[in-house]
C-alpha cells in the first residue's frame, strides 16, 4: 500500500547557519525627510500607528515602523481596469529600467536580484454571449533577497517596481529589514528531523494513506521574513517544503510549509536579542 507521504531524497544541505538579527530602525524626522524627498514629496508625515504616512495629491508614501519597509504609490495609479492596452517594455528592458530607478530613490540593494516580470491583467465581459476582452494594465519587476546564498522566503523580503502608461513607475515597494549577521553560527536540525516535524504537523493529523496523498516536491533551506508591519528581531532559518496534497474530497492542491531549522535554546536567543520562541515549529 502506498505511503501517505512522498518526500524527495536529499543529501544534507549544510550543518550550520548564520543568524541575522534585524534590529528596529529608528525612523526619525531626518529619515522621513530623506525618503520623502527621494519621491519628491513635501507633505507633513502622519503617524498612523503601524505606518508613517506622507500623502499629497500626487502620491502616498508609507514607512513601516516595525521594519523600515517602504511603499510608495502614485495617486490614482490603481485604476487597474483601464480599457486600453498599454505597450510595455520587453522583460529585459523593464529590468534594465527598474534597476537604476531603485538606485535613484535609494532602494537598491545588493542582496536583492530580479526574480520575475509579471503583469496585472483585466478582463471585461460585456455580456454572457461575448468573449471577455483582456488588457494588460501594469508591468511589475519583482526582486527576491538572499543571504549567504540562501533565499529569504516570506512576504517581508521583496522589492517590486510597477510600470504603467508610458512605462512610468507608478508604485514601488521594498519590504525588508536591514540584517546584522551574528558572529557565531548556529547548528541546523538535520533534514531527517525537519521531515519528521513536517510529517507530524497538525495539518496532516486527520489524513489517512487510504484516502490521501501528500507529496513534497521540493525541500529548500532559507530564511523567513514576516510581513513588514510585524516586529521580527531575527530572520528565521527555515526548511521550506513545497508540494501538493490530494484527498478523496479535494483533489490536488498545493502547499508550502516552513519548518524552523535551527536548534537553539531559548536563553541563547534571548541573549542575542532575538525571540523566535513564539514562532511555531512550522509556519
Amino acid at each position, binding site marked *: 500500500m502506498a505511503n501517505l507521504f512522498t518526500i524527495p531524497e536529499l543529501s544534507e544541505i549544510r550543518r550550520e547557519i548564520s543568524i541575522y538579527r534585524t534590529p528596529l530602525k529608528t525612523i526619525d524626522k531626518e529619515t522621513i525627510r530623506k525618503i520623502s524627498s527621494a519621491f519628491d514629496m513635501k507633505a507633513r508625515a502622519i503617524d498612523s500607528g503601524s505606518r508613517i504616512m506622507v500623502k499629497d495629491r500626487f502620491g502616498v508614501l508609507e514607512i513601516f515602523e516595525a521594519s523600515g519597509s517602504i511603499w510608495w504609490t502614485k495617486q490614482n495609479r490603481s485604476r487597474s481596469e483601464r480599457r486600453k492596452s498599454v505597450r510595455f517594455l520587453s522583460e529585459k528592458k523593464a529590468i534594465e529600467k527598474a534597476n537604476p530607478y531603485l538606485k535613484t530613490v535609494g532602494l537598491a540593494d545588493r542582496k536583492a536580484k530580479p526574480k520575475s516580470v509579471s503583469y496585472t*491583467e483585466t478582463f471585461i465581459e460585456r455580456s454572457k454571449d461575448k468573449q471577455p476582452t483582456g488588457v494588460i494594465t501594469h508591468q511589475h519587476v519583482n526582486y527576491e533577497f538572499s543571504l549567504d546564498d540562501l533565499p529569504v522566503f516570506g512576504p517581508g523580503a521583496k522589492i517590486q517596481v510597477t510600470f504603467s502608461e508610458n512605462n512610468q513607475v507608478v508604485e514601488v515597494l521594498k519590504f525588508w529589514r536591514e540584517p546584522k549577521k551574528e558572529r557565531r553560527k548556529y547548528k541546523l536540525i538535520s533534514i531527517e528531523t525537519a521531515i519528521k516535524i513536517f510529517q507530524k504537523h497538525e*495539518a496532516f493529523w486527520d489524513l489517512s494513506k487510504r484516502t490521501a496523498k501528500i507529496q513534497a*516536491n521540493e525541500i529548500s533551506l532559507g530564511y523567513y521574513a514576516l510581513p513588514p508591519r510585524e516586529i521580527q528581531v531575527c530572520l528565521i532559518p527555515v526548511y521550506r517544503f513545497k508540494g501538493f496534497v490530494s484527498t478523496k*474530497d479535494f483533489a*490536488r492542491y*498545493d502547499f508550502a510549509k516552513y519548518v524552523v531549522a535551527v536548534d537553539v535554546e531559548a536563553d541563547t536567543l534571548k541573549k542575542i536579542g532575538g525571540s523566535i520562541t513564539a514562532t511555531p515549529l512550522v509556519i
Partner: protein
Amino acid sequence: MAKIGIEWVKKYHGRASNLSNTKKQAEGFYNKLSGTRSFNWGDDLAWDQDFEESGVGSPATGTDTTWIDSVHIAFFSGHGGPTGPLFGVAGYDNGRAHHSEVRWGNQTLDWIAFDACKILRHEGLSKYFLTGKLQASICGDDKFTGKGYFFSGDYYIRYDWNNDNVDIGYPKRIKDHWHNWPSSFNGGIDAALCGDGPFSGKAYFFKGNSYIRYDWGSDAVDPGYPKNIASHWHGWPNSFNGGIDAVLLGDGPFSGKAYFFKGDLYLRYDWSNDSVDSGYPKKIRDHWHNWPNLNDDVFDRWRDSFNGLHIILGFYTTCNDESKRGRYFAEYLNDGYTVIEAWKKACKETESSDAKWAYLRSGGGSGVNTYNDHWHGKGWVSPDPTNAWCAYSKGSC
C-alpha cells in the same frame, strides 16, 4: 451600522489537510473592522449551506438569507478551489459551496472575501486548449529540461513534470518566445517532437508537409528551415499517420516513453520495447492533471452568483495559511481605502510576489460604480449593480 459575518475552517476531518491560521485570520478581520459583528462560525459550525441560496443548484438546501446574505461583508478563511470554498463537515449539505448553488446580494451582501486558494482562477485563453484544439506538444531540453510544451494556434502552455501541473501565467504567444519562428508556421502547427540520440538538443515542429528544426542551445530555429517532411522522415507508426495532433517525449518518472495525442485520446509508446504500451489509447483529461478546461473561466463560474453583490475578492493562485491578512484588510478598510485597494494591499503585505490577488466585480445600472466602493461610513458605496457586465482583474502580490 454595517454588518459583518465570518466563517472559517481549521479542522477538515480528513476531507483535506487541516489549516493552522484560519481562525486568527477571520477573527482578525472580524474584530478589527468597525461595524456590527453578526456571526462568527468556525470549524464544525461553518456550513456550506450558510453560503447557498435555497432552491438553487444541487443540493438545494441553502440558508444564505439567514447568514451570508444577511450581512454587508462576509469573510471566509479555509480551503477553496475554482468551484468554491470547502468545509470541514458535509452533513448539512455536501460540504462545498459550489458556484452553481450561490446567489448573493438579493438581500444584503455587498462584498465577499475568500482567504482561500484559487477561487478566482481564470485562464482567458483556456478554451484554446480544450479537447480537439490541441495541436502539438514537446519536451524541453538543455536549459528548458523538466518542462513540457503544448501548442494551440499562436499560443502555448508549459507543463512542469515535477509538479505534474500547468505552470502559472500560460498560455503565451509562440512568436514572442520561440526565436526565428517562420511566419509560415504562424497560426498553428500539427505536431512537435524532441530529438533523441544523435539528434538530441533539437526539436522538430511539423506543419502540413513541412517541418522546422529548433536548437535548444541557441534557443532559435536552425537556418535553412522549413524543409519538406517526406524527404527527410521515414517509418513513423501507421496507426497515427496523417492524424497525429501531437507527440511528446516523457521525462523524469516518465522517461523512456513517448506520448502520442489524437483528439481527446493519447497513447503511450515505449522506446525500449519499441511499441505502444497495452491499455492505450486513454482519455487525456483523466490522466493529465490540472488540464485547462471550461471551469477555468471565472465569468462562467461566478457570473450568476451576482444578484446585487458588488465584488468577490480572492486569489488567482494558491495563498498561504497565514494569520494576518484579515486584520490588515480590515485596517485598510477602516483607513478609507476602497474595498478593492484594501484587498490588494492586504494581499501584497502578506504574500510573496509569486501569489496573485484577484477580484471579480459586477457593474451596470444608474449611478453604479462598484470599483470605487468603500466600507460603509468610509466613503462612496455604490448602489447595487444590475449585473449587466463583469470585470475581473488579477496581479502579483
